[in-house]
C-alpha cells in the first residue's frame, strides 16, 4: 500500500515533529547559554538553600526584577542632579535613590533577609515606620531577599547598575561584593565612622568580618554565635549528669557514645551528629580545627593552611566520631526540611553544635521542651573557640545619596533598632551594650549565654575565592569520613586545589 508522502500545502506529521524538535533545540539549549550570558539577566536563584528553590522560577523573577530595576536606574542616571531624580511616578522597584516629582524626596532601597510575617510586622512598626516618619523627604523602602538568593540577586543588581542603597549580607560574600581595589562596589564607611560614637560598641571580632584591605565596608548586624546545646533528658537516661556538658573532645566523644541509642541498626538517637552536608561539614571541622589552634590561612591570606597538624587532627576526630565511636550514621542524621523538623528538636540528636536560632525553634515549635535544653560552652583543646558567623549591612557604592544611606544605616544599627531586630529573630545582637541591657535577653538566659559565647567566636577571614574553597574542603572531609583517604592525603590534595582557586580568584578580582 502506498500513500503519497508529499502533499502540497500541508505539513506532514513527520515534518511537524521535525519542526518541533528544532524549536525544542532552541528552547532547550539556548536559554542555558543565555542564562550565563545575559548581562543583567545573568541570574537565577535557584535552588538556593536547600529549600533552594526552583531554579527557573526564581530566575524569571530575578530577571524581571533586575530589568525593571535597571529602567529606573537609567532614569536616575539621566537625571540632572546626582542626588535626586525627577519622575512623575512613584518608584516602582527597589533601586538606587529615587525621588518624586517636584520635591527632593529620596527613597532608599533596602534589601534585607526575609523575616516572617509576624517578625516583619514588628520590625516595620518599631524600626522602619518611625524612621520614615522622621523626615517625609527621606524614606526607606524595604524588600526581602533570602539567604538562598541574596548573593546572586545582589551580584546581578551590581552587574546591572541597579544595586540597592543598603543590603544585608553574609561575611563570606564581602570579597565578591567589594570587588577590586579602586573598583569597589561597596561604600567604604571609614569617613563616616570617624564621627560615629557607636563603633566601639560592636564586638571586635565581628568588626573583623566587615574589614578588608584596611577599610570598613559595612556594619555588623545579626550575630550568629555558636555553642553546644544538649538534651538533658538524654543525659539522665544515659546516667550522665544533666548539668555537666562536655568541655573537651574526649568528653564529647564519651558522652556522645553514652547518649547514642540504636534500635537494631537504626539510630533512634545520635549522640553527636556529623552531617555530610555542603558547608555544614566544613563548618564543624573548622570548630575542631580552631580548637586545636589551627589557622585557616597563612599570614597574608593568600594560601590555606588546612593540612597542619591541627587540621589533620580535626579531620581524624570527625571521622572517628562516625567510624570509631559510632555516634551517628554515616552521612549523619538528615536535617529536617522545615525548622519544625529539626532532628535535635525532635530528640534524634543528644548533643549539637548550635546557634541561638535553635532556641527560637524550640520556643516556636516545642515550647515545653525548652527546659530540657542544656547549654555548653565551646570545647577547649589548645584553645576554647568556636566558629562565629553573622551578617552585616552594607551601603552600595552606586547609591546616589551616600549621606542619606548612612543616616538610614546608622538608624538601623542604633541600639533601639538593633534590639528590635535581635528580639524578632531571637538572636543576640552585635552590640555589646544591647546584649547587656535588652529586656528580651534578660528574659531568656540561654540567649544571654549565646551572647557571652561570642567572646569565644572566631570568624573565617574573608578573601576572594572563599566560596570555592568551602566546596574543596567539604569534598576532602567527606572522603576522610567515608574512609576513602587519610586526613593527610585528603587535606594535602585539598590545599593544592584551594590555593590554585585562590590564585585564580585574585587574578579575576584584580
Amino acid at each position, binding site marked *: 500500500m502506498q500513500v503519497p508522502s508529499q502533499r502540497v500545502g500541508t505539513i506532514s*506529521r513527520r515534518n511537524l515533529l521535525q519542526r518541533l524538535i528544532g524549536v525544542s533545540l532552541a528552547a532547550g539549549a539556548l536559554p542555558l547559554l543565555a542564562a550565563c550570558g545575559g548581562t543583567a539577566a545573568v541570574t537565577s536563584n535557584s535552588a538556593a538553600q536547600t529549600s533552594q528553590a526552583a531554579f527557573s522560577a526564581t530566575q524569571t523573577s530575578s530577571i524581571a526584577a533586575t530589568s525593571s530595576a535597571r529602567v529606573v536606574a537609567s532614569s536616575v542616571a539621566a537625571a540632572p542632579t546626582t542626588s535626586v531624580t525627577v519622575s512623575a511616578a512613584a518608584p516602582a522597584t527597589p533601586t538606587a535613590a529615587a525621588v518624586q516629582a517636584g520635591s527632593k524626596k529620596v527613597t532608599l532601597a533596602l534589601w534585607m533577609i526575609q523575616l516572617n510575617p509576624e517578625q516583619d510586622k514588628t520590625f516595620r512598626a518599631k524600626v522602619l515606620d518611625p524612621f520614615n516618619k522622621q523626615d517625609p523627604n527621606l524614606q526607606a523602602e524595604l524588600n526581602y531577599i533570602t539567604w538562598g538568593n541574596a548573593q546572586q540577586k545582589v551580584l546581578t543588581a551590581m552587574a546591572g547598575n541597579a544595586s540597592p542603597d543598603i543590603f544585608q549580607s553574609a561575611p563570606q560574600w564581602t570579597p565578591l561584593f567589594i570587588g577590586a581595589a579602586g573598583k569597589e562596589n561597596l561604600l567604604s564607611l571609614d569617613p563616616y565612622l570617624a564621627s560615629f560614637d557607636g563603633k566601639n560598641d560592636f564586638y571586635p571580632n565581628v568588626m573583623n568580618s566587615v574589614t578588608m584591605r584596611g577599610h570598613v565596608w559595612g556594619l555588623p548586624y545579626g550575630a550568629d554565635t555558636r555553642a553546644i546545646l544538649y538534651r538533658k533528658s538524654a543525659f539522665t537516661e544515659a546516667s550522665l549528669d544533666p548539668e555537666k556538658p562536655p568541655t573537651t573532645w574526649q568528653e564529647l566523644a564519651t558522652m556522645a557514645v553514652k547518649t547514642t541509642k540504636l534500635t537494631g541498626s*537504626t539510630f533512634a538517637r545520635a549522640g553527636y551528629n556529623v552531617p555530610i552536608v555542603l558547608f555544614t561539614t566544613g563548618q564543624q571541622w573548622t570548630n575542631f580545627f580552631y580548637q586545636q589552634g589551627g589557622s585557616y590561612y597563612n599570614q597574608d591570606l593568600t594560601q590555606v593552611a588546612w593540612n597542619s597538624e591541627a587540621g589533620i587532627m580535626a579531620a581524624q576526630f570527625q571521622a572517628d566520631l562516625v567510624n570509631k565511636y559510632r555516634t551517628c550514621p554515616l552521612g549523619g542524621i538528615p536535617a529536617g526540611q522545615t525548622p519544625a523538623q529539626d532532628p535535635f528538636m525532635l530528640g534524634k540528636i543528644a548533643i549539637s553544635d548550635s546557634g541561638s536560632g535553635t532556641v527560637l525553634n524550640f520556643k516556636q515549635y516545642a515550647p515545653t521542651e525548652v527546659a530540657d535544653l542544656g547549654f555548653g560552652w565551646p570545647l577547649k583543646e589548645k584553645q576554647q573557640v568556636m566558629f562565629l558567623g553573622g551578617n552585616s549591612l552594607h551601603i552600595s557604592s552606586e547609591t546616589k545619596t551616600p549621606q542619606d544611606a548612612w543616616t538610614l544605616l546608622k538608624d538601623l544599627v542604633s541600639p533601639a533598632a538593633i534590639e528590635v531586630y535581635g528580639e524578632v529573630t531571637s538572636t543576640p545582637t552585635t552590640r555589646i551594650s544591647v546584649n547587656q541591657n535588652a529586656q528580651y535577653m534578660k528574659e531568656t538566659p540561654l540567649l544571654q549565654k549565646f551572647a557571652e559565647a561570642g567572646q569565644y567566636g572566631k570568624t573565617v577571614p574573608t578573601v576572594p575565592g572563599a566560596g570555592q574553597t568551602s566546596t574543596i574542603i567539604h*569534598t576532602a572531609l567527606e572522603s576522610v569520613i567515608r574512609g576513602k583517604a587519610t586526613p593527610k592525603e585528603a587535606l594535602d590534595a585539598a590545599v593544592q586545589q584551594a590555593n590554585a582557586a585562590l590564585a585564580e580568584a585574585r587574578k579575576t578580582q584584580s
Partner: protein
Amino acid sequence: MAAPVHKGATSPLVRARASGRHAVRGAGLARREATWGLIFIAPAMLLFAAFSLYPVLWTLGISLTYYSIAVAPKWAALDNYRVLLRDPLFWKALRNTVVFVVGTVPAHIVLGLGLALLLNLPLRGRALLRSSYYLPGVVSAVAASLIWLSIYNPQAGLLNDVLGWFHLPPQLWLQDPDQAMPAIMALSVWQGLGGAMLIFLAGLQGIPQLYYDAAAIDGANGWARFRHITWPLLFPTTFFVLVTSCIGAFQVFQQPWIMTQGGPLNRTLTLVMSIYLNGFQYGRMGYASALAVVLFVVILGFSLVNLRLFNRDVEY
C-alpha cells in the same frame, strides 16, 4: 488509495508571472506579503534576538574573559577552556551527566511507549489511568525532590521501611556514592514518564486503523503488527521523544541540587550544577560561561548524532 494530487499545481505568483501585466501586479503582491510577513514575525524575532541570541553571543564572549560579575570582565583568551580541560570536576560532572542521560532517556522511551501501548487499549477507567500516570509531571521538580528525599531517608524513609518488611537490610540511598545517582535517575524517570507517554499516545492515535485492519486480514499477529506497523510509524514520535529527553536530561539540575547538592563525593555533580556553582557561588562567571558553551556543543553534538542515526523517513 487515491492520492490528492493538484494537477499543474503552481503558486499564484508563478501563474501571474506567466502573463505580462499580471506579473507586475503579482510581484508587488509578493513584496507586500513579504513585508507584512516580516512585520508579523518581527516581535518574536526581536524578543528572540534580545533574550536568546544576544545573551548567547555574550556568553561566548564572556567565556573568553575572567569575570566575577562584580568586576568588569578581563580578556583571558582561551584560558577558561584550558583550565576546564584540566579540571577533574569538569570531567566528573560530564561523566555524571552522560550517565544520567544514558540511564534516563532509554527508560523514558521504553517505559513511556509501554505505558502508551497499554493505555491505548480500550480499558475501563482509561482516562483516569492516563491522568494518574501524567500527574507526577505536573508536580514541580522541587516538590517532587523533597518528597523523594523523605522516601530515601536512610533512617526513617519509606523505602527502607519497605525493605524491612522483606527482611532486607536498609540502604543509604542518597548517602551512598554508588546508589545516589541511580536514586535520582529513578525520580527523574518517574517524573518524566507521563510526558513521554502522552506524546507516544498522540503518535499512536495518528496511525490509521486501516493499516491494522489490512494486516489483520493478512493474518499478522500482535507482535507482527507492532513490529511492522506501530514501531516504524512511531519513528518520528520516538525521535522527537529521544531528542527532547536528551536535551532535558543534559540540563538536569534541580533534583540533584536539592537532594544531594552534588554529593556524595561529587558523584551527582552535573554540568549545569557546575555552571551554577561556578557562576553564582564562586564568582567565576567566565569559567561558568565556558562550561555553558561546552554543554551547548555537547547537546548539539548529541542532537546531530541522533538526527543522523534515528531520523528515518518511514511512510506507507
